[in-house]
């Protein structure tokens, strides 16, 4: 598919993240302080909706509109998953962002997110550099 399709899909998703206030430092901080439960609501509804939609999709279609086989399968479990999750969570709280929202923040005019995005690139590079081949996550994940 053409890059413009994915660019547009990314724009739509960035719009949704912004409307969800997932790009808002105060919303993330408030979630972890348990003083603002908004994002728990967003995540809960999103998981339920995605689960229902994926279940329908599994019954209804095996081929995407572009002719490709629909390839949505569970990610493999390995022993670094939980530890990696912890590391990620620390970063999530420190920066008030995640990989997607840091980029959406840039579009909102929050130029300080350039620091976050640079950090994510560095962390990604570092892990791929240091990881032994056996636990090195595939680029497709």
């Amino acid at each position: 598919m053409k890059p413009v399709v994915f660019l547009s899909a990314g724009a739509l998703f960035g719009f949704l993240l912004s409307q969800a206030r997932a790009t808002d430092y105060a919303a993330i901080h408030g979630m972890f302080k348990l003083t603002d439960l908004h994002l728990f609501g967003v995540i809960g509804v999103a998981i339920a909706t995605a689960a229902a939609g994926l279940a329908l999709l599994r019954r209804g279609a095996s081929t995407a509109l572009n002719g490709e086989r629909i390839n949505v399968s569970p990610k493999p479990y390995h022993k670094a998953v939980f530890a990696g999750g912890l590391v990620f969570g620390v970063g999530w709280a420190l920066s008030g962002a995640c990989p997607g929202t840091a980029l959406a923040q840039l579009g909102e005019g929050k130029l300080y997110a350039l620091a976050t995005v640079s950090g994510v690139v560095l962390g990604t590079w570092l892990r791929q550099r240091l990881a032994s081949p056996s636990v090195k996550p595939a680029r497709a994940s």
Partner: protein
Amino acid sequence: METWPFWLAGLGIGAFVPLFALTTGKALGISSGYSEMCAITKPASAERWKLWFALGLPLGGLASALLGGGPSVSTSSAEMTSALGVSGAAQLLLLALGGAFIGYGARMAGGCTSGHSIVGIAQGAKSSLIATIGFMAGGFAATWIAILLAGGAQ
């Protein structure tokens, strides 16, 4: 900025997942797009779409801000200053450090809040549930430690 209620945003994000799969055949995932940024000088792989997707995200943030009468450009986060008392260069350093943890942790865990917490849990994947418990535990721990270091809860 006026934004959507939680249920509408949740419905939108949730519906995006199957619609994206139906349109492109692919599972939504963002953190691996950063791997593509790191591999920008290499020949395009089958994962290059993730780079385009990632580059689309700021455009959506801009559209959302325009809808809210913005965007207003800022070079520091006032919310972060009021939460932790850090500003200026120290704040940017903390953001970059947080970002590095995000990138490193996402590659260890094999995904982030979109690929694991939304798409993965929606499939009932054990790995995604465990990763997400880790995301939350790490976030709670870091937040409360940061608050204590910054001089107590406000």
